[in-house]
């Protein structure tokens, strides 16, 4: 299993989204990566498979930066307020 470090995650993001690693910091928001939502799904699933980690949609919704993503991949747990379809009933 690959160790979960910021550099390892940033390298993976760089390859998958074709963005330079030197432009990525722990504070970089996902919204600045220029990826559509399907691409982001592909990225987060790939990262979990690569780092043998697991988190849910509910946990993912609570984070917005690469640093927070590294934390989730490293096993930091977030309180789960809802299931994977929490916004379904709101629509």
């Amino acid at each position: 299993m690959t160790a979960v470090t910021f550099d390892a995650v940033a390298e993976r993001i760089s390859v998958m989204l074709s963005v330079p690693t030197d432009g990525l910091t722990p504070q970089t928001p996902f919204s600045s990566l220029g990826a559509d939502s399907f691409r982001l799904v592909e990225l987060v699933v790939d990262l979990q498979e690569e780092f043998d980690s697991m988190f849910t949609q509910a946990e993912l919704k609570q984070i917005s930066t690469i640093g927070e993503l590294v934390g989730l991949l490293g096993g930091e747990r977030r309180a789960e307020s809802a299931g994977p379809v929490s916004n379904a009933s709101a629509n």
Partner: protein
Amino acid sequence: MTDELTENDLWLLNYYRSSEINGALFFGRVARIVRGPLQVDVTHHFADESNHAKYWTECIDDLGHVPDRQRSAYQDQYLEAAGMPANLMEVLAVTQVFEKRVISQYHRHLRFPGTHPRVRATIETIMLDERWHVKYVRDALLEMAARYGGERVDKTVEDYARADREVYAKTISEYGERIAFLGDAAGPDDEPDDEL
């Protein structure tokens, strides 16, 4: 749907085609990231979805029409309501629910006695693949219980099934007149078969 396609017949075939294209694009991404033994089945699934889009394109062409680009497919509304899956188990859970919905809709179309023979043949060909999709995904989800927890897997499938029912009801309310020709076979009460 007998000799001549009506505007609504054609709309529905284009809707199917568009949904299959979106399915192929989605599963192409999944095939790119999945690891281990699932690579074989997921890549097969990706190829099937692409072929289904080809079958519908050929069907529409054979019936003398040009496939029309639709602005959105069922999946677009579906993922908007259900939320994007965040891990491989959630990807397969949403796939399981969606594939059952597809089979249910194709069943309805087959039950309509006026279905054009060319359309019927296309659906029957696709259905062979769809049944396998449900089976391999169900088996994969059972295996994933060890990693994600059986309770979490069951809850995720239930949550996506609830979202699916909401989106289907919304789709029927928006496009009901388009598929009214299917008659009773198009009723919203006909839910996907849990035993598939």
